């Protein structure tokens, strides 16, 4: 299995475009990171102190071309600069401590929703028109259209604030030290329940809908009829013959939806004070922390491109017809 040169070329161009845009965008916005930094000092900073700090950090008066060279050099060495908001932490430090939580959240939500959505979709298609289908399919449409912020706030209010079953913030109990032990893992699990449930309805709805329609067309294929004729059990025909082949459009959909999942995770993390990239991006935007915003946009571009690339490869595994042609 290999990926064609043309396909790789597309990825390269997309990446180059993202890198250049990432350089240009913050420079089109009013103000500089140094302004933001100085503004954070508040009224207690004396004018002399402000001038000294500007002089210290304000190396922004060089020609744009030189700035671009510096920026590229930084990228090559994974040096994305220093955060304004979390100074003196570097952008790489800030992003690496947040990334792990967002990945955990998004991956857990996707795995959970994929399992639930695909099964629901397969059963709906298998029994289309039945009672299960008439309840689940319209429900899926509703689930797609409810924005995560509504789901998040409702969940938070019900299970967090009113019933107090689940913790309302953080990624794990702040009294614990991170480590590979049962207590810590349990705390992480409990703290992830509400955020994952918030991200899931949209995904489950999408997966159910895509799976259902894809499965319906697969079920009309000759090999499914043959499977039935061979006297195989419902379950093996449904999943072995039908669902496996109906998965392809679901995976395509997943790749397309990654952006939306990250978008949803931003809202979710803000609602649940979950220390991932979303909360970091939100805080950075409010503080005008351009270096962090820039680093994060780049990271998200890379993640989306990477995920698409990965789906291309997975395609090859699942669909034998594409094994040599991708």
């Amino acid at each position: 299995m290999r990926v064609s040169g043309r396909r790789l070329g597309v990825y390269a161009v997309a990446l180059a475009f993202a890198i250049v845009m990432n350089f240009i965008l913050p420079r089109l916005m009013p103000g500089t990171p140094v302004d933001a930094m100085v503004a954070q000092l508040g009224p207690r900073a004396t004018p002399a102190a402000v001038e000294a700090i500007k002089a210290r950090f304000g190396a922004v008066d060089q020609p744009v071309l030189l700035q671009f060279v510096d920026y590229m050099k930084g990228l090559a060495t994974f040096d994305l600069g220093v955060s304004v908001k979390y100074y003196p932490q570097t952008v790489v430090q800030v992003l690496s401590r947040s990334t792990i939580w967002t990945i955990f959240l998004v991956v857990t939500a996707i795995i959970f929703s994929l399992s639930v959505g695909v099964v629901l979709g397969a059963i709906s298609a298998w029994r289309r028109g039945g009672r299960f289908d008439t309840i689940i399919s319209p429900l899926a449409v509703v689930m797609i259209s409810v924005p995560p912020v509504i789901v998040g706030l409702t969940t938070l209010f019900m299970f967090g604030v009113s019933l107090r079953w689940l913790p309302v913030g953080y990624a794990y109990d702040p009294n614990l030290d991170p480590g590979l032990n049962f207590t810590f893992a349990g705390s992480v699990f409990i703290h992830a329940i509400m955020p994952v449930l918030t991200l899931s309805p949209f995904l489950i709805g999408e997966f159910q809908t895509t799976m259902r329609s894809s499965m319906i067309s697969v079920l009309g294929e000759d090999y499914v009829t043959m499977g039935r004729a061979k006297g195989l059990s419902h379950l093996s025909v449904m999943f072995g013959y039908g669902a496996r082949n109906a998965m392809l459009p679901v995976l395509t959909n997943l790749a397309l939806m990654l952006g939306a999942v990250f978008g949803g995770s931003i809202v979710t993390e803000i609602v649940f004070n979950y220390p991932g990239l979303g909360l970091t991006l939100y805080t950075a935007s409010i503080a005008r922390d351009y270096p962090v915003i820039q680093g994060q946009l780049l990271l998200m571009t890379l993640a989306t491109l990477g995920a698409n690339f990965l789906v291309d490869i997975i395609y090859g595994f699942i669909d034998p017809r594409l094994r040599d042609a991708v």
Partner: protein
Amino acid sequence: MGLDKSVIRSVSARAAWAAATALTVVMTFGISAASAAESVLTMHIEEQSSWVQNFNPFDLAGRRQSTMDFIYEPLVIFNAQDGGKPVWRLATSYKFSDDMMSITYELRPGAKWSDGQPLTSADVKYTIDLMLKNAALDTVGVGETVASVEAPSPTEVTIKLKAVNSDFPESLADLAVVPQHVWKDVSDPVAFKNEKPIGSGPMTEVRRFTPQVYEQCRNPDYWDAASLHVDCLRLPQISGNDQMLAILPEGNMDWIGSFIPEIDKTFVALDADHNGYWQPPAETVAFQMNFKSKDEGNLEAYKDLNFRHAFSLAMDRKSMVDIAGFGYPVVNEHASGLPPRFEGWRNKAAEGDKDAFMGFDTEKASKILDDAGYKKGSDGFRTTPSGKPINFPIIVPNGWTDWIDAVQIAVEGLRAAGINASVTTPEYEQWRKQILDGSFEVVMNSRADGATPFRGYYQSLSTAYAGRVTGAPSRYSNPKLDALFDQYLKATSDDDHKKIFNDIQLLVAEDFPVVPVFNGPTWYQFSSKRFTGWVTDKDPVMNPEDHDNNRMRLMHLLRLKPVQ
């Protein structure tokens, strides 16, 4: 909020099994509280989405707000609630020289750093010299006021001043004295994170630090250990008001400094026996016009006392407080703008008929403008007596919703009086920049007070500060007022200070350079479940706010005792 209690109850009845499971799980994965012998005080003093271990007292933007006072003790604190009287800490007294050109502090003998080394005058001298040499570290403005520092004996520090300044001790109250034996080896004090601080305050030991919570515990060598009954401060990360509201029902917070909407319902009702608050009025918020505006029409209007009076009469202060401010601020009805916390400094002569323009009366405002020659054009808006258009935006930072609403109310009043005003909400940095570079027209702003009302007036209305700091955007300049400020700085006795400040109040009320509207609240809430000794409205002896701008919070901490 849609769910009433019966709904919640029926939901929980049906889901009893789930509740039980969740509870069991929570208890199994157990959150072990700190050992019972220790008294741990949980507090909320700043909002951040993640803690960064930075206890560098010179880093105003990045330091944790528990750095000052709790790690670095001030020389002396002035209690605004007690007429600005000194509370001696690392110093036991100070004395100006006869010509007022130098001041000598007597340091407390036997004070130690948290590593056991003695704290001497050499440390104070070292700290001030460090700031003089490196302007980026100058958080208290010694570069402008101090000529040189000497340490004649281990307990004596003599500071030579550049000019006579009786306000100097108050400005030095923000000084964090750092240990010379540690800081002399720091190569870059601006970027230094000071992760394991050696300090002189009550809580110097950073026992635990994670992005979500940190604990700052008892200084083993604290000189005033006998007064200290709290063993550790526990500071959970809280990202904002919403997060705070969600956390409050857990009942784990002891000392809070937060904006809590509908506080009686959302906080006090949760535990009426223990939860309390006291939010006395703080700094004066006022509208300031740019007396160096480049717009000829606007400038002509701002410089006219009649216009400023009419502006003030168009302010619906009560709505600003009740609607925009959730009833937390207090209307300021005095042309002098004196904050209520300085009641003892009030000059009756600066009130009464001087406050005639502090009500809300757009008809009277219109009449003043008519009489002064501000004619209405075909669009319903007035021009200046010389016929130039008046048209200005009032700037307020984006996202400061209560302030934006207040400015919106101001604009409605102004437009009713025929003045073409509008609201603009730039980002905070842009707002700040416009104030400092003078490109704004009108702004609503608060000014920082000190232990006495002097500092607030001096740093917002003197020519020396005009346009230099965010507290003085109006660029007002009045030689008579400057002369009074100068007299005040040279005066040494409390009586003289009071007398001169009476004249300052009177002059400000008469010339009306800014339009006071209200006094913002102090943010202070507490729970007496685990600790007692909280300051309340019945015992208003000090400012109880736990934020970094209030040095008295140190004395408040020392009042607290664990419940037996």
